[in-house]
């Protein structure tokens, strides 16, 4: 007693569960996101004291990003084909109200996909994205920008 204690883990879990799952779904797809979610919070629990006053959202997203990368390495494949080439078979569409944009995000180059996930799924600031991606704020901003432009190009080509 007497020392400043970190927040109870259950409050941390409650606060970050939604954005972490959204981010992981964007990175590895809805099925594998469940496993990555468990792994992310297990790592967070084990190393909880290393958070130590830091930014909890950026910290947990850094872990989630690493789990997504590990997952891609372990499965040896990406959720969708690389680069600009479109799949022969249209990607399965989510139920009606979903625009299906995130399955397009999954086809973007790694840095752009991660940057978009951290920006729009995890809702991080550029400074936090830079931290999670181990890069500069300017490079993070650039990746988001490029990702959005790429995404627009893909939609327009598909729609036209």
């Amino acid at each position, binding site marked *: 007693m007497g020392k400043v*204690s970190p927040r109870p883990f259950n409050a941390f879990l409650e606060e970050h569960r939604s954005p972490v799952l959204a981010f992981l779904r964007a990175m590895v797809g809805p099925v594998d996101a469940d496993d990555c979610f468990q792994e992310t919070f297990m790592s967070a629990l084990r190393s909880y004291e290393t958070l130590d006053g830091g930014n909890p959202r950026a910290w947990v997203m850094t872990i989630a990003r690493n789990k997504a990368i590990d997952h891609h390495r372990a499965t040896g494949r990406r959720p969708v084909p690389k680069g600009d080439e479109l799949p022969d078979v249209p990607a399965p569409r989510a139920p009606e109200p979903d625009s299906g944009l995130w399955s397009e995000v999954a086809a973007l180059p790694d840095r752009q996909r991660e940057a978009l996930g951290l920006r729009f799924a995890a809702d991080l600031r550029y400074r936090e994205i830079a931290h999670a991606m181990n890069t500069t704020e300017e490079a993070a901003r650039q990746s988001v920008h490029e990702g959005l432009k790429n*995404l627009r190009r893909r939609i327009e080509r598909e729609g036209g």
Partner: protein
Amino acid sequence: MSETEDIERLLRADLRRGGGSEALARRFAEYAAGSGEADVAFATVDTPVGTTSVATTERGIVSVGLPNHPLDDFVERLASEISPRVVEAPGRLDQARRELEEYFSGERKRFDLALDWAIVPGGFYRKVLEATARLDYGEVMTYGEVAMSAGNPRAHRAAGTALGANPLPIVVPCHRVVRSGGRDPGNYGGGRELKQWLLDLESADLDLDKI
């Protein structure tokens, strides 16, 4: 970046429909508690006098909340006095929840739960609570008597302080320690009315047993 505003909006909107993280978080919490990766698990229990809470470590029940005590305070205390690795895992507390429910409905007279005395202070405080733990259902003792059982008959005030700091109320039945003489049962963390309610619950049951 206005040219991509519509895309940004769609990206955010799609995720709001996702949902499902609550069930995953619950599954995580139960696993973390069951595997011992989390140091403390807690759950809430509904009683006739309000919602209460109960927490366990690997060794046993470490803390019981009083009905209507704020849950946030209960969890903060677990985090600061035991470990911040606290999760809400009702499955891990099945037996404790069931026994508390049975107690509050008058069906249970003794708890069969392993206890963890980790946040009970040592010395005289601990002796007071150990003496209190030996009190049977419906049996009462005065502050002076419990001080005597703890080895210091003159320390009835300190006995009161020790009981006030009891992290395991109900299970270590500090409500069974009352003021001598008079109708006032004495102080209680959950309020005098609650203390009287618990004493009435236990005496009503005893009366029924005599019939």
